[in-house]
């Protein structure tokens, strides 16, 4: 595997037992916690890309936003660069070093602001320049970095195509020279040819600036392409985490297996040889999550023990974590 993985000690983001519950109104004056993220732990090494995949509504985006403390986590700890994020001052510091690229390039840019104001907004908020020239210089530098023409600086966002808008969003994320970027499905709103350009740009920027990514997506092929390691989530819980190639070739958790078997194969011979594992039923509502293992209602190997307790998220091979009771039997 690549060099980043070998540097085991240098952990940039360490997430420990992160829980994010939202109170949902059920009836008059009654609320119920919606467990969007339930006890998730993982760490991201410096310079690494961790892919995060899962069905819609499984809590991928919430994990990303909770790490950045855009939602105040219900429980758990986020340790960024060796410092636990606790006070407001910690969060303020985190805002400079960790940013986010959003899914929808249309709604993530303010329609009343020019491109230079959008890219310059983080600079304005943190007063990261001494004078107007320095600000403009930095903005043009950022635009050049993401492949935008400098004469576009005074345009408005609606004058750009989806790919260009996403570049504006990326330039905004890079403005404060962050260490860590949460990419929340940054390419899923783009068409395939543009996806390739944007992904290549992510890779290039990572090499240039030694960035660390949490890359959230539901497209396994995109995630495998860009990620060093991949984590799989199901109903607010992490079910498997391993190196990208390993999880792709030898998935252990039944959910991951089914997920990987659904990836389209370009070669019809290979595709025919692969057996598609079709899951029955739908993903349960996170408001009424099943007891024990969240996947047991759809798992082909479910046993009575699965209903009793949530399986431990344990390392079965070096660097390969799985949460399943019946791992040895299947």
């Amino acid at each position, binding site marked *: 595997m690549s060099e980043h993985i070998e540097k085991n000690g240098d952990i940039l983001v360490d997430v420990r037992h992160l829980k994010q519950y939202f109170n949902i109104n059920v009836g008059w004056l009654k609320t119920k916690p919606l467990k969007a993220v339930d006890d998730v732990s993982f760490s991201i090494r410096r310079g690494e890309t961790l892919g995060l995949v899962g069905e819609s509504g499984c809590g991928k985006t919430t994990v990303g936003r909770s790490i950045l403390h855009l939602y105040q986590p219900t429980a758990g700890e986020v340790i960024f660069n060796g410092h636990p994020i606790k006070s407001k001052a910690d969060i303020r510091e985190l805002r400079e070093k960790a*940013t*986010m690229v959003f899914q929808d390039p249309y*709604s*993530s840019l*303010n329609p009343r602001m020019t491109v230079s104001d959008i890219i310059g907004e983080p600079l304005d908020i943190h007063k990261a320049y001494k004078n107007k020239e320095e600000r403009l210089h930095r903005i043009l530098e950022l635009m050049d970095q993401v492949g935008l023409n400098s004469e576009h600086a005074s345009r*408005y966002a609606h004058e750009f195509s989806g790919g260009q808008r996403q570049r504006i969003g990326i330039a905004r994320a890079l403005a404060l020279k962050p260490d860590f970027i949460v990419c929340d499905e940054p390419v899923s709103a783009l068409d395939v040819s543009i996806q*390739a350009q944007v992904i290549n740009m992510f890779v290039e920027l990572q090499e240039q600036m030694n960035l660390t990514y949490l890359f959230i997506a539901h497209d396994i092929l995109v995630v*495998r392409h860009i990620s060093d390691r991949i984590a799989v989530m199901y109903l607010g819980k992490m079910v498997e985490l391993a190196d990208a190639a390993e999880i792709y070739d030898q998935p252990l958790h039944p959910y991951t297996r089914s997920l990987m078997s659904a990836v389209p194969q370009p070669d019809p011979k290979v595709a025919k040889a692969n057996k598609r594992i079709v899951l029955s039923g739908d993903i349960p509502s996170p408001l009424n999550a099943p007891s024990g293992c969240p996947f047991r209602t759809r798992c082909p190997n479910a046993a009575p023990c699965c209903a009793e307790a949530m399986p431990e998220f344990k390392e079965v091979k070096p660097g390969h974590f799985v949460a399943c009771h019946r791992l040895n039997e299947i």
Partner: protein
Amino acid sequence: MKDFKDLRKAFSMHVDLDAFIPATDEEKAYMVQMRPSSTFFRDGVKRLLKNKVATVSLIVIIIITLSSLFIPLFWPYEFGEQLGIQPGKPVDSSYGNLAPFEYGKTEQERIAAGEKIFPHIFGTDERGRDYFIRVVYGTRISLAVGFFASIIVLIIGMTIGSISGYCGGAVDLVIMRIVDIIYSLPDMLMVILLASVLKKTLGTALEGTALERIGTNIISLFIVFGVLYWVSMSRLIRGQILSLREQEYVLASRAAGAKGSWIIRKHLLPNSISVVIISTALQIPNAIFTESFLSFLGLGVNAPMPSLGSLASDALNGLSSYPYRMIIPAIVISLIVLSLNLFGDGLRDAFDPKLRN
């Protein structure tokens, strides 16, 4: 295990550069289109000017406003000047109730002597005051009241509405219940009660201050507007802010470390500004109408200052003999209110196509 880091670049496209000829400088210059960026505001103005009704209304409003501002500067008569009363001379009753373009006794003598006298276009009222200048002054007062009352409503409504919408939760709940209470009061009754109470209490409170010159009645009018009419504006802005704050660019701003006031100023208000402008423009005729109505009831401006409503009210006494004294201020009120309403509709169509039916 394959090395995926190397494979990552496989998505790039390879082009044979020999198949292309470099562009000349001329061709390059031709390709660069440096058109000025069209802003939201410019687009709106363009759409507004295409709307004939709105443009005509705007011209009418401008003409009325400018004439109410500048005509008193060169008009030879004052709005409070009783032409029949000269210091040291007995009261000349021939100046009262002149018909349009008629002259008083002394004026006729001077005309006979070859002097030129400025005509009383609309005649005079029963106290011998030039009626035209009173109508012009009344228009000025009505416009000023309408404009400033709308500004007051705008400031209060915008502040409270944006706080309520942005904070949400308990703050929103409390503010919106207060709004509901004010909303449910019969507003004309409240306006009349407040105006008559404030007229008494403010009179003593303002004595000796600069505000006394404006008149207690106008100030009480402003307070009435400030207290009662901000509710619909704040509701409107709250609704806008509620939908805008869920936008991803607000989240992006928060992720960059922005605080609440920054987000409201930079993202939420600029995006709701079209709604704000439109409802303010539609608020002005409303305020003018209320002012005229209160003046008509005698709760408006202090005498001898005229407003369109008090002029109409005074004209009631001699309605059968001098109907034009009622008709003229009524026409002016209708013209102002109608053109402001039509202009407001035009603004709405131009700046907020979503609201159009």
